């Protein structure tokens, strides 16, 4: 092992730098102690020349040696002074991949922490929505009205349209299936029971989660990134009281209303097919529809909307407040909120189906 010297050209650029690197590789075939670069002839250096210098230093270190330079003239002294830290820097150690148990433990710990955070948020939100206002701790009624308008009134058209089209599709599909038996009038029963128990609630909640759940997550995430959440906390304002409670209450109020409108729209969609295509008189279709469902069917459809509303609002808030990083974090958390919302809607629906169809008969 010995010191090895390398002479740099008068002009160090992309071309001469590449040649210098080849020369360094040629003379460093054996293990070296120190590679010394003689810069005494170098009068000019550009960015590519500097990049080749870093590559040569990296190469020398990989060969187990040290990289030094000497004799730099005034013309490139600034360059070398600024490059010095990078030239002496040790290569980045390779990242150690965690083992299977380590990954599993990290995932479980992460999930447990997130669940604890979510529970904490739920308790806070429910307290500031349902308890604190009655203890005289205040509720932002103006914000509630704004949110109700945004989440409810502005969603009416899309909710009605989606349910109407779904009613139309189900009428088309089922009428075709029962045509051979001459039982097309029972399409009205199918649509009434289907929408009252399941479809109006699940379709409306899906539209609302994509629209409102995403908006809640994006709004809170952006506020967090721009330190507005910290500003609220810094002023001693409770985030759950100021931001979450109006949203939660607004969704609790508007979602059942939207589901009711969704139910009417779905029935209208089915009726359009029944009257205009299947040729039933409107009064007959109307009587058949009304006679198909009991109040219980409508109540169980409406009852789950309360849980849907809580899930959409709190999952949106939870993901929004968990954001890390900048704009990409906002996008990721918004997507996550919608995916979690839809998954949770299905879970809640399964629980209700199990309770009403099997446990209660």
């Amino acid at each position: 092992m010995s010191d090895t010297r390398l002479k740099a050209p008068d002009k160090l650029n992309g071309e001469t730098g590449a040649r210098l690197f080849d020369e360094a590789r040629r003379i460093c075939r054996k293990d070296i102690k120190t590679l010394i670069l003689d810069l005494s002839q170098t009068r000019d250096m550009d960015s590519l020349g500097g990049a080749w210098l870093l590559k040569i230093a990296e190469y020398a270190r990989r060969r187990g040696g040290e990289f030094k330079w000497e004799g730099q003239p005034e013309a490139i002294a600034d360059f070398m002074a600024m490059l010095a830290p990078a030239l002496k820097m040790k290569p980045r150690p390779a990242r150690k991949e965690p083992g299977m148990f380590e990954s599993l433990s990290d995932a479980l710990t992460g999930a447990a922490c997130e669940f604890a955070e979510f529970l904490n948020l739920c308790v806070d939100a429910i307290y500031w929505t349902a308890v604190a206002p009655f203890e005289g701790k205040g509720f932002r009624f103006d914000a509630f009205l704004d949110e109700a308008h945004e989440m409810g009134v502005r969603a009416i058209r899309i909710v009605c349209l989606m349910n109407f089209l779904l009613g139309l599709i189900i009428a088309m599909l089922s009428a075709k299936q029962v045509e051979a038996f001459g039982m097309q009038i029972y399409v009205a029963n199918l649509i009434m029971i289907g929408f009252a128990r399941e479809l109006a609630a699940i379709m409306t909640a899906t539209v609302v989660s994509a629209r409102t759940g995403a908006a809640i997550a994006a709004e809170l995430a952006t506020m967090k990134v721009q330190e507005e959440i910290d500003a609220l906390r810094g002023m001693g304002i409770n985030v759950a009281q100021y931001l979450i409670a109006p949203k939660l209450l607004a969704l609790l109020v508007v979602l059942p209303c939207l589901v009711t409108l969704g139910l009417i729209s779905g029935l209208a969609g089915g009726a359009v097919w029944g009257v205009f295509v299947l040729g039933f008189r409107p009064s007959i279709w109307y009587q058949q529809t009304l006679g198909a469902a009991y109040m219980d069917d409508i109540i169980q459809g409406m009852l789950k909307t309360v849980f849907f509303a809580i899930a959409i609002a709190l999952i949106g808030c939870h993901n929004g407040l968990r954001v890390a990083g900048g704009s990409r974090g906002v996008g990721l958390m918004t997507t996550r909120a919608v995916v979690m919302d839809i998954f949770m809607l299905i879970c809640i629906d399964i629980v209700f189906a199990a309770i009403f169809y099997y446990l209660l008969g």
Partner: protein
Amino acid sequence: MEDIIIKVTDLVAHYGDFKVLDGVSFEVRRGEIFMIVGGSGCGKSTLLKHLCGLMRPTSGEILFQGKNVAAMDEDELAEMQHTIGIAFQSSGLFNSMTVGDNVAMPMREFGNVDEALIDNLVRFKLSLVGLAAAQYLMPGELSGGMRKRAGLARAIALDPALVYFDEPSAGLDPIIAAGLDEMILKLKRMLKTTFVIVTHELESIRLVADRVLMLDKGKVVFCGALDEAMTAPIERLRQFFDRRPDEYIT
């Protein structure tokens, strides 16, 4: 004429009905640090956006290396923008990438550099702004001053002839701001880059500027060497450099 890199003639720009720039004319010489100064809302940042082609003027001419930026089509504009660097006030770093990948992005997109050398070139650029150790950090992990320097490293990634820098010292403490000024001077010396800097930081102007353009209500109040700016008997200029509020104007 050869040492003129930018020549602006009678530039007029509007926001709706409001005239932001009113007959602005000046020249920037190759290799100098040209500072655009003035109070808040005087049109500095708007002028900078017109110079780098991010906004189109109502009328007037902006010649960059002899070509009129105001009359360029989209392709010509994109080609021109590959030859300049822009460092934004809030750095404009992409939060989804590491600092190194931010700097490498223009090299990969537009540069003619071998992929094997890009990593070293990125480290070189980061070394020039004193951030070699931050190559693998995410922008969110950097302080305000480091973000500005990383933004500057990205702006000089392709060795542009000209760098536009919007408010380099805004929001930084005096030590970091002085370090950034020092760095701009070094980069000018080493890379022979022309800098057009928008600022209202008096210390930076005194330390860094070769020539100064002062705007007031969209009009040019003064354009000339720093020494002249420090002594010229122009009330608005004196008020600016002496830090006097408006009510003291007689």
